[in-house]
């Protein structure tokens, strides 16, 4: 392994390697995976001069700490959090030069859930089916970061970011998800559809990269019985037997047997990735564009 690498000093609650995922393999049962908040991942890559598809770290609530072996330029974005280099405060949402052997610490998110950490050159773990993303459903890609692990970095492109700081959306205080009803809205009662699009839900602490789980009024089914397995899309709102909607995120299964009452607009899913447990959620009908 070359010296362009970093050691994991503190892996945090769950830190994974993510890029833009591996779409195109759903027919083989392979989830798309990839960064849950793609605009944040793209932005930190841009801040260090990386290509959009470079692999970054995605942390969960408690951040992580790493020690690069060579000087690197990093940028932290997504959920706002304290950033330090050898204990000294460093900027969030802007390029930061980290000397060789210094400790880069990404602290606990002040709001939101997931921070993104880009290194110039990108995290250079071995790609699987064209992507370096960790897929927690099927186990493809590198394992989540562990204390003491060493991850390789790629060579910087030599291009410099044209921006040194950019505005980023704040994590949502209330998550408003625009939905188009269907394909299985007819499996629910009219009252359930009314409930779904008017009542308040909350983000459940059981949420993960596979799905945003909700707490709130259960949706009553009009049709009982089992739906034969069918293909699932990103943003599908699946309703398991307990009646609480689950919004499918990047590591969602490619097929499923619970009815999908509606589909969330892809543009709204980045906010869903940053909605901490307890955040109020509303599903609003937006129809199809």
């Amino acid at each position, binding site marked *: 392994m070359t010296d362009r690498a970093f050691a994991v000093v503190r892996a945090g609650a769950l830190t994974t390697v993510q890029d833009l995922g591996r779409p195109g393999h759903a027919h083989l049962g*392979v989830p798309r995976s990839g960064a849950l908040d793609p605009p944040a991942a793209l932005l930190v890559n841009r801040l260090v001069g990386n290509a959009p598809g470079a692999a970054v770290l995605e942390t969960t609530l408690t951040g992580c700490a790493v020690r690069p072996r060579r000087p690197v330029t990093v940028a932290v974005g997504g959920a706002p959090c304290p950033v330090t280099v050898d204990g000294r405060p460093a900027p969030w949402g802007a390029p930061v030069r980290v000397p060789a052997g210094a400790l880069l610490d990404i602290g606990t998110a002040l709001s939101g859930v997931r921070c993104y950490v880009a290194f110039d050159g990108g995290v250079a773990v071995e790609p699987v089916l064209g992507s370096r993303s960790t897929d927690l459903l099927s186990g*493809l890609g590198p394992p989540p970061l562990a204390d003491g692990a060493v991850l390789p970095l790629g060579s910087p492109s030599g291009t410099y970011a044209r921006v040194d700081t950019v505005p980023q959306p704040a994590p949502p205080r209330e998550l408003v998800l625009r939905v188009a009803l269907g394909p299985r809205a007819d499996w629910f009662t009219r009252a359930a559809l009314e409930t779904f699009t008017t009542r308040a839900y909350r983000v459940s602490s059981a949420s993960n990269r596979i799905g945003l789980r909700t707490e709130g009024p259960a949706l009553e089914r009009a049709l009982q019985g089992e739906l034969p397995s069918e293909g699932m899309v990103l943003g599908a709102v699946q309703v398991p037997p307990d009646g609480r909607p689950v919004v499918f995120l990047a590591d969602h299964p490619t097929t499923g047997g619970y009815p999908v009452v509606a589909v969330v607009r892809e543009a709204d899913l980045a906010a869903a990735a940053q909605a901490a447990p307890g955040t109020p959620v509303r599903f609003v009908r937006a129809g199809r564009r």
Partner: protein
Amino acid sequence: MRALPVGEGALLVELADGTEAQALHAELLRRRAAGTLRVREIVPAARTVLLDGLDEPDRVRAELPGWEIPPLPERAEAVLEIPVRYDGPDLADVAAHWGVSVPEVARIHAAAEFRVAFCGFAPGFGYLTGLPERYEVPRRATPRTSVPEGSVALAGPYTGVYPRASPGGWQLIGSTDAVLWDHARVPAALLSPGVRVRFVPHEFPPHEPLGDAPFEPPVDPPPASPGRAPEGR
């Protein structure tokens, strides 16, 4: 055929049964290869095909009912053979469901020609159809916490092979050394939708010894070759 809109850029096409879904899937692949259909994912399932990442979902939805979809050919020229030891812990339960003896389960299963209807559950896990309807079996009442890699299993109308150890509720009838999934291999998945499969017994039951090489899979037994086919076909 019914095409249901799914969000902004996808369609779920619902067919009368699995055979129609497989025929539409084959036609969709042809159209994509010919460049007349632009779509990111074509995901067949039990009796639907999902088209995800469509450039023009409304146009495709309007045109679909007018498509001519040729039926699937009855028998394929190319059939993938998967060697199997029929030694699963649920063989007796499956035999009881089918009302046959345990050795008969292996014979019936190995005599069928299968087709990968769709994949799901795990990378490389195929749902294979091909057994006559009367051989459907329920899932186990209590799923196993760990099913070994390479287990050949039945549930409902499907046969599946576990690409890696995982929890599972299917009835285990055998095992194979075939590598179902290897992400370093091209293609990574041994089974993809549309692939034809036969299960070839790895060894014959002890009371029917096959010469001195019981662990060698029989070499390419065509249906018309009486000398090599398992007894009882």
